[in-house]
């Protein structure tokens, strides 16, 4: 007679390391789990989760059916005090709102988060602000270009960016002429976009500025026109190479450099693995040999550094808000007072389309201050009011603390947080609020 197996039939215990690795995958390469998603990923293990999260999806049920934002060419601003100026300004504001919520919704609702996650990364990389561009259409066109190429080829992305109206206008490229080149775009192209600081000389900055002459922006339409007469046609010497360049061929030349592979690998590492422990394993650049972004992201996502407990990261305000919205089933544009969302993101210091400078947003400790703690508490209070709390309220009280961790994709609660949560065990809304503000959620451990 076979003895009956009396052990409880639970899902196999998953190690803490495996749980951490999957949690990091979901929060860093995606925007956090939807209800039930984390438990499913745990059941399948890391390799299966990585396959899902690090692959480029051909279809996306939400993204493919989302309406376009209401942005269009508004033409030039009417004269001050003219009758048209009020309707112009009203529409301008509405366009920015429409564009902002279009993207926030997309980040929350896309089935496959990696493309939006990477689009967000590239927005911070080619950091361009509406503050100066002041028209929604060119910002939207840039955003579409970044999304199209987010997991494509970096050479193509860079070529599109050096020809991008919003970026050129942001960095004064439209006033860069052969007579007196403007170096703003050429410097940042090498320092912040393709090579990294000190991987070029001051002479290279002056020379490459010449290659970027002759491009004029028609801002409201987001079109760039090329004026051959204003383009420097002579030969220039860039990084030791003599030749005649335009914006696209200059971009190709820079992107083909080994320094460019190293730089982009460093930047993705900085945002996805650790800003505090810089890239040391330069062998990763091999996966970027053909400038295939998807291949590089996959290699970084599978790198053993994702296991290292030291590589924790603070969720930026967007990371925090989008992952909370996904868990709480909140659609940003349908929020009862959508302005509240932009207001809190602004107070927390991270509003999409408004990076603080051309270097993009800061990381980690910069997001931890007492003022951000207070805004996070206020913001979470608003969010919880409109949340679907059934993933927690449907659980028996004693199952709720573990249930919260699985719901939100938290690695583990400290005894401190368990104690705080235990005091609120019968109140799902309070539980959700405390969990969202806990150090274990604010930091991707």
């Amino acid at each position, binding site marked *: 007679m076979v003895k009956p197996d009396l052990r409880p039939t639970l899902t196999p215990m998953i190690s803490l390391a495996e749980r951490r690795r999957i949690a990091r995958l979901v929060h860093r390469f995606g925007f956090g789990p939807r209800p039930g998603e984390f438990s499913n990923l745990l059941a399948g293990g890391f390799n299966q989760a990585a396959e899902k999260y690090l692959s480029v999806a051909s279809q996306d049920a939400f993204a493919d059916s989302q309406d376009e934002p209401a942005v269009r060419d508004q033409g030039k601003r009417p004269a001050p005090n003219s009758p048209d100026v009020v309707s112009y300004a009203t529409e301008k504001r509405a366009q920015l709102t429409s564009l902002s919520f279009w993207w926030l919704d997309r980040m929350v609702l896309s089935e496959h988060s990696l493309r939006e996650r990477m689009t967000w990364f590239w927005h911070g990389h080619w950091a361009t602000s509406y*503050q*100066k561009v002041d028209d929604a259409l060119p910002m939207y066109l840039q955003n579409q270009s970044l999304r199209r190429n987010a997991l494509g080829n970096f050479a193509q992305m860079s070529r599109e960016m050096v020809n991008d109206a919003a970026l050129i206008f*942001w*960095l*004064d490229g439209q*006033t*860069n*002429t052969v*007579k*007196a*080149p*403007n*170096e*703003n775009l050429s*410097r940042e192209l090498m*320092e912040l976009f393709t090579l*990294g*600081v*000190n*991987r070029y000389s001051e002479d290279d*900055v002056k020379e490459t*500025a010449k290659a970027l002459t002759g491009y004029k922006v028609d801002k409201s339409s987001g079109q760039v026109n090329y004026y051959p007469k204003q383009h420097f046609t002579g030969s220039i010497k860039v990084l030791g190479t003599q030749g005649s360049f335009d914006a696209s061929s200059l971009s190709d030349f820079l992107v083909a450099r080994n320094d460019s592979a190293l730089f982009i690998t460093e930047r993705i590492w*900085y945002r996805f693995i650790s*800003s505090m422990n810089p890239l040391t394993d330069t062998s990763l650049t091999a996966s970027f040999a053909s400038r295939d972004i998807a291949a590089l992201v996959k290699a970084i996502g599978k790198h053993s550094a994702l296991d290292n407990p*030291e590589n*924790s990261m*603070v969720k930026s305000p967007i990371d925090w808000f989008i992952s909370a919205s996904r868990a709480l089933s909140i659609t940003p544009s349908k929020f009862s007072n959508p302005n509240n969302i932009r207001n809190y993101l602004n*107070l927390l210091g991270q509003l999409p389309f408004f990076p603080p*400078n*051309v*270097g993009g947003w*800061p*990381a980690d*400790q*910069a997001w*931890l*201050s*007492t*003022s*951000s*703690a*207070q805004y996070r*508490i206020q913001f979470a209070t608003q969010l919880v009011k409109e949340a679907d709390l059934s993933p927690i309220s449907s659980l028996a009280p004693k199952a709720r603390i573990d249930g919260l961790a699985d719901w939100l994709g938290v690695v583990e609660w*400290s*005894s*401190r*947080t368990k*104690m*705080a949560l235990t*005091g*609120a065990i019968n109140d799902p809304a309070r539980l959700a*609020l*405390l969990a969202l*503000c*806990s*150090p*274990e959620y*604010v*930091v991707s*451990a």
Partner: protein
Amino acid sequence: MDTITRRQFLKATGAGALGAAAMSLSIEEIANAAITRPLPLGTPILVVVTLYGGNDGLNTVVPVNDPIYQSLRPGIAYKPEDVLPLGENLYLNGSMSGMHSLWNKNQVAIVRGVGYPNSDRSHFSSMAIWQSAIIGAAKTGWLGRWVESQPEDPFLAISLGSILPPLLAGSKRSGSVLPLGGLKVPNGSLASDCIKLAIESRSDNLLQAMAAKTMRNLFTVSADITPILRSPAPAAPDLPTAIGGNAGGDTNLSQQLDIVAKLVAAGAPTRVWSVSLGGFDTHADEKGSQAILLGVVSQGISKFMSQMRATNRAKDVVVLVYSEFGRRVRGNASDGTDHGTSGPVFLLGERVKGGFYGEQPSLNNLKDDDLAVTTDFRDIYASVLEKVLSTPAEKILGNWKGRTPLFN
């Protein structure tokens, strides 16, 4: 390469480097400290004004009669009737009338041609050098190291705004930040929940411990003081930054200085204040936008000085104004200028010995189209440390010999 980007710098030293999180203070806490332990009268106070983006020194202190200046800058050069006389054939930007009248009272020192060897033209790298006073990989700011040389006191050095500038970052202790807009502390059951959540846990990693600490700080605000100051209005930009604004910095200098003035007047036990203004990256249409910005700087500082004269702290306050670099001598075709090298540094106050210091870089003697550096900025820092902060410069700057005799 041993120079670093601003992001790397912020990572190493900024808003709370590991072990040196920036304490975020409320205006009530500072007011409370001002009541309970006011700064003794006669203690010097340093106000550092950082101009982000690279201020064009040649259109700030203008060699308007120099034919080379006129010929290299068509469209950007000022005319003699636009500028205010300083002497030695130099003129102040016409929008800076407030600072000009302080100059005439001998309360402004202008150090000419300030920079460092082998100027770095990256905003981020050059600002890291100015704020750390270290050329090469830096982990701390010069005033952050000063904070660490003093007895521990979170009120000693305060930056306005919610992000700590690298300037005030130390390795174990940093300066504090005062976010504009004040703090709204949760109350009732939410407060007691959050207090529980903010307890330090042994299992916290460094960042989690910092997250818990920042939340804890919310509740250390003393609840029962009589606020002697109203909370400041929400941060409101007071000028457009559409042009030249893509290199960072704040937009509300006058509001920041206004709060500093109130807190100094109240007796805050603070020796160093840090404020900033962005928008100086004038690659295009420079003339108008730089004049607006310099007008804000001049008006803000002269108003601040007159507020100080209404208190008994006028003799104590020294204002230091700098930017990460000057700009190229030759204008570009966008009626702007590209990144350059040296520029003027301003010091203001009744303690300051007014007048010119350092040699004006000659336009006959440009190196790669750029101005020469005639004074190292660390000479100025060394004198400020010794004469304003009463600290041996060696402790902060190492073995730095140069001094600028700026003070009475």
